[in-house]
């Protein structure tokens, strides 16, 4: 067994939660995001497809799924970034007996809004949504979605039949969008009691009817709370934006080398800015031309620009999966991604320049980033070091950012 390291993030630090096929790693840096410490691996040997950090009400509770092909899938938590964690006697996320199905994996853990501090959601395989309203102690199946008449026609994608994306509306607590592969996007307007497919305009390349009501293989949906009814969507083939709360979708694949891909993340402050990592075709599923390029739009998809400085542009046959692209909330925002080849890259300047943070990991299947907002501040640095870094421009808290003021 490998040795397990621990990190102790403080307020003002940034943490990366890196879920791999062989366990969870927790990376920590100060706000400069240049030097990283690595904690983990936690739950060694188990795929970790989902992770989240709950910082509401002063918590710093780490959640992650632990899938064991032998012993099933369990939801773990830790209040000290993995040093100690729960070993739940019974699994908390389970289908009810009358459902007739059994949990295969947890693909997404979504922390609810700040004004619902005990609400969390899990998206699972087979495709279903679970909710907890007691801080993750107990979970219940969202029956309105599970009983949807379309469910019998949802089919597995390459990774399994999973509900992988959960996007609560920024202001309306009864609205939420989820996405599944395959099945597409579904929206509730009544707190989960009823759901409607919301895929109008999204292409299903693999279906006889290219624009069906449902059945699309949506890989990721993101949004920025500043524009609560605008969403961006990375499809199995296709890039889309909706400005009407997902009622309709418009193709925005303007100038990208491939509109196939898995990952997508919204800029934390600018609602016109989104990042993707194009992948060449669903046959090949590697970065086009052997170039590892993050693409960014700053005009809501009217055009995209490649971000390559610091990323390999030769022989980089990489695959970046759907939950492996993340952003922190500092200003300038940090952007991060993990590859199936076990590398983690990061940018502390919104994608302008990149650094290889860590390599040699097992295949990366999820990356989450967060600025630590609770707890004690990092200890003061030695004087000499402080002097050395004096000229460096420190990252500003998001609340003071230009973009935040503009909002």
């Amino acid at each position, binding site marked *: 067994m490998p040795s397990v390291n621990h990190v102790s993030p403080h307020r003002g630090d940034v943490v990366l939660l890196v879920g791999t096929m062989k366990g969870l790693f927790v990376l920590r840096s100060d706000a400069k995001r240049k030097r990283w410490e690595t904690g983990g691996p936690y739950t060694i040997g188990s795929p970790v497809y989902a992770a989240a950090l709950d910082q509401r009400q002063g918590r710093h509770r780490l959640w992650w799924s632990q899938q064991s*092909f032998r*012993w099933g899938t369990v939801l773990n938590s830790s209040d000290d970034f993995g040093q100690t964690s729960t070993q739940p006697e019974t699994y908390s996320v389970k*289908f009810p007996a009358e459902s007739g199905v059994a949990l295969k994996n947890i693909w997404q853990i979504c922390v609810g809004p700040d004004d619902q501090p005990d609400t969390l959601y899990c998206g699972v395989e087979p495709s279903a949504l679970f909710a907890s309203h007691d801080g993750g102690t107990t979970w219940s199946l969202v029956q309105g979605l599970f009983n949807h008449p379309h469910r019998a026609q949802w089919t597995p994608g390459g990774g399994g039949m999973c509900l992988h994306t959960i996007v609560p509306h920024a202001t309306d607590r009864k609205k939420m969008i989820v996405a599944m592969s395959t099945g597409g996007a579904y929206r509730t307007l009544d707190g989960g009691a009823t759901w409607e497919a919301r895929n109008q305009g999204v292409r299903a390349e693999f279906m006889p009817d290219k624009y069906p009501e449902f059945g699309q293989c949506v890989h990721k949906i993101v949004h920025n709370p500043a524009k609560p009814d605008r969403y961006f969507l990375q499809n199995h083939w296709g890039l889309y934006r909706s400005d009407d709360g997902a009622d309709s979708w418009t193709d925005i694949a303007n100038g990208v080398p491939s509109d196939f891909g898995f990952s997508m993340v919204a800029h934390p402050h600018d609602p016109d800015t989104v990042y993707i990592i194009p992948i060449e075709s669903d046959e090949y599923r590697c970065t086009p031309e052997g170039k590892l390029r993050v693409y960014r739009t700053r005009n809501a998809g009217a055009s995209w620009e490649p971000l390559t400085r610091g990323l390999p542009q030769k022989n980089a046959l990489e695959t970046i999966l759907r939950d492996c692209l993340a952003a922190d909330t500092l200003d300038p925002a940090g952007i991060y991604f993990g590859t199936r080849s076990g590398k983690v890259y990061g940018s502390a300047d919104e994608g302008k320049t990149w650094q290889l943070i860590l390599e040699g990991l097992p295949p990366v299947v999820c990356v989450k980033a967060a600025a630590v907002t609770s707890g004690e501040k990092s200890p003061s640095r030695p004087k000499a070091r402080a002097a050395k870094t004096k000229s460096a421009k420190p990252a500003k808290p998001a609340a003071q950012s230009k973009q935040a003021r503009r909002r």
Partner: protein
Amino acid sequence: MPVTFRIPSYLAGFAGNSNAVSLPGSPVTVQGALTALWERCPALRDRIVDEQGQVRQHVNIFVGNESIRFANGLETPVPDDAEILIVPAVSGG
């Protein structure tokens, strides 16, 4: 007559740090023996069977040398003084 479960090392921590659990009584079937095992060691249940009560795909249960998959599943009879082995399957990646 009692039955004895042999517990794999990974799960021993959920069985009082023991690789063997002996249960009194005379369960007729594997299902009955497992029900008694859950009462003694409740944390084992979700790890060995799914929420539908089915033995997980990559877990094998033997009564003596006989895999219940090739016998009568959870209805496989349990003879007196039986030893029931819970064994992780040779699978994975």
